[in-house]
């Protein structure tokens, strides 16, 4: 599964030797030519004993000659500012979007889903918290027929009787609330099935409502498995969380936060405190790249702000 970088120096109990350093004994040009002629990569040797051992490790490449992994193809996130910051969402990689409540995580997620479905790709969202609002999904421009929604958790009535308030006023007892462990178990198994199925342009893992201490129960090996499952596929694996939990398995980690929310005065009234005189029109969201494998930028080197309008703002 995993590729390991093997150092000849470490194997032989010697300190690491870098490309530019002087060696005690450097093999002659003829021997180097011989090595080349045998189709082996050139090796540096320090002693006769080292030569013998080196012959056994002739197939091992030096770290400096390891091939560079090709940059992944990028898919648009649906937000121009975000694309300018990150270059898009990497395909075949895990991307994490984290932030607190009202930080714009779902807005970014739905924008990415809308962009993907507009491209004609099939998308799936594994909703651990059963928090997706279909009205928001439609307003974000997602083609609903191309989005598979998996709602984790137990069966529950679609219309909550507490809110019905009908003439009979009947109060039904809710089914016993499902445990976080059960939801997480479902979430992991569903994700595995979707990744195994393949063919999706974007698979979103929504852990936005799962408390960080519960989300951290997902082991790093699981995230590694997810990452390996999408590797070399055109699938964007997008995880939405409160805090980063996938560690080094994610290729891109974006941290979001609300800069400010804009309120529009809808009427010229004498008492501005009146609620109906005001309207929430847009949120300004700040995005920061915490980690990116695509561009080797230091953490926190880039930050942008973009606006998300409410559906009724026009």
């Amino acid at each position: 599964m995993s590729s390991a970088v093997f150092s000849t120096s470490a194997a032989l109990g010697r300190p690491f030797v870098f490309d530019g350093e002087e060696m005690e004994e450097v093999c002659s040009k003829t021997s180097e030519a011989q090595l080349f002629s045998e189709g082996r990569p050139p090796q540096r040797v320090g002693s006769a004993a080292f030569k013998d051992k080196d012959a056994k490790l002739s197939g091992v490449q030096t770290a400096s000659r390891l091939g560079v992994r090709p940059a992944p193809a990028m898919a648009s996130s649906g937000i121009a500012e975000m694309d300018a910051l990150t270059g898009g969402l990497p395909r075949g990689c895990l991307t994490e979007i984290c932030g607190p409540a009202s930080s714009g995580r779902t807005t970014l997620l739905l924008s990415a889903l809308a962009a993907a479905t507009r491209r004609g790709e099939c998308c799936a969202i594994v909703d651990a918290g059963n928090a997706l609002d279909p009205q928001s999904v439609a307003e974000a421009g997602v083609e609903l027929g191309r989005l598979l929604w998996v709602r984790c958790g137990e069966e529950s009535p679609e219309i909550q009787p507490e809110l019905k308030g009908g003439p009979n006023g009947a109060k039904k007892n809710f089914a016993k609330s499902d445990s976080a462990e059960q939801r997480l178990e479902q979430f992991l198994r569903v994700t595995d099935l979707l990744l195994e199925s393949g063919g999706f342009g974007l698979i979103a893992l929504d852990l936005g409502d799962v408390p960080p201490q519960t989300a951290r129960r997902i082991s790093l090996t699981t995230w590694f498995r997810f990452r390996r499952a999408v590797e070399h596929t055109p699938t964007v694996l997008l995880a939405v969380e409160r805090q980063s939990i996938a560690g080094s398995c994610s290729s891109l980690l974006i941290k979001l936060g609300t800069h400010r929310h804009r309120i529009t005065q809808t009427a010229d009234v004498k008492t501005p405190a009146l609620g109906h005189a005001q309207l929430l029109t847009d949120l300004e969201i700040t995005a920061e790249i915490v980690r990116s494998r695509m561009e080797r930028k230091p953490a926190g080197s880039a930050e942008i702000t973009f606006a998300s309008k409410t559906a009724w703002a026009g």
Partner: protein
Amino acid sequence: MPFACIFVPNFSVAAVFRAEPELRARAVAIFEGKPPLEKVFAMNESASRAGITPGMTKAQAELCSELTLRPRSPLQESAAHAALLDCAQSFSPCVEDAAANAAILDLAGMESLFGTLSEIARNLFHCTADLGLDANVAVASNPDAALLAARGFSGVTVIPRGKEAEQLGSLKVEVLFPAQEERTSEQKREAGRLPETLDRWGVRDLRALAALPEVALSERLGQEGLRLQQLARGTASRTLVPVEAPATFEEAVELEYPIVLLEPLAFLLNRLIEQICARLAARALNTQELRLTLELQNLTGADPESDTVGIPSESEAAKSATESQATSQQFVSGRQAKFCRTLRLPLPMLDAKLFLKLLQLDLNAHPPGAPIVKIHLIAEPVRPRSTQGGLFLPPSPEPEKLELTLARIAGLVGKSRVGSVELLDTHRAEGFRLRRFVPGAAPETKHKKSATEEKSAVAALRMFRPPLRANVTWENGELAGVVCTKKKEVQGSVLWKAGPWRSSGDWWEREAWARDEWDIALQSNEGVALYRLVHDLLGGGWFVEGTYD
């Protein structure tokens, strides 16, 4: 004009072997009749060698220890007959249903499609073998000669034009008289008399019969004698009576002992599905609907409509039929209950493994609840899908793989919790439903946007399901604070609010609703967060419905 005939010798045994291939290596006898007068009706060669003869009572046959006895199954025989016709139909559109165990094909014009006559005969032989039947195949210039050759010669026989009398001459006279199971009532009357007469005359083979003088033969045996002589000479001529092959693909198996576990059921289902898939493949058809009927052991003392037996009632099945891909039905006939499951597929498919897995998942989710004594499977045939994925279109999940994945996910989270969203024409909260996810069936958007076109992001709402009951505090007639006991982080002082936005609906129904919505910003320990606060005007409670995120 060439004709081919497919003939299955010892048809009752062949039908049993088709359903239970593992019996081929054993001595098998088929019995029929009402207990205790059951008699052996047919047997294979191994059973004959062991001394079993037709007409033996079941009790006598049971004395043979290595003998396997099976009751005669009209269901299996009709399925084998249908398979025979399917095989014939896959080579020629003009097929005569000559008998339960014989089909005659008109091969005129088929040589350009399927090769020479001998190649067609060989392919017919292999095709019937693939369908689980050991058949004889013969090709001749007239239908009756082909039928006689198929009855008399085992394997593949091709009789060149003009050589019929020569080739058929070596056959015994008995081939002119079909076996008991193939005879019509008229033939049965003649059957006893004519062979005896010919035997007395010393006519043992068709060559001898063909050599008899026609006038003398007609004086003694009448028109029937002349007809038999024409058959023996291979000169009988008639037109085929083509049949329209029935478009029903059904297989059934009756069990000697009731099945209690799903694992052995899957084993039997696999066999039935493979047989149906082979028949569909022979006719170049796929299926989009599989109907499984399980006959259950009598449920004496159990109320069929109660939940105790684990079978969904008819009303429940009808209720769920609109939303679920697999529907169930259960009814009681006499003392035996039938449990039905219908598996509807989004696209025409033909994958036995997939069908088996889907049925297994469905039965796991909806177990029959009683021992199974009979399995009946029907596939609705449809033409295969002919669309091909575009070279430059984005990839989408393979339909077969996706169907299996969706079934597995439905098994994990429930059928009503997986699918694609369909918004309902209502302003009610949660005004949506989930429908089956079929990527190919996604409707085109009215105003098609280019893939590169991007609109500004729309602030999304994250729902709390169920909504969080909130305690609201007021100061000077203004909303001042919100506290949710169930979710500690949703509490704090109201920094800002917009609303109320009033909506109501369905007042003409029992499910009436009326509510005021507020958009509020709460200052909590974690920072400022925006929420949607709802006041249920009919119920009187306050709820935090979701957060803007």
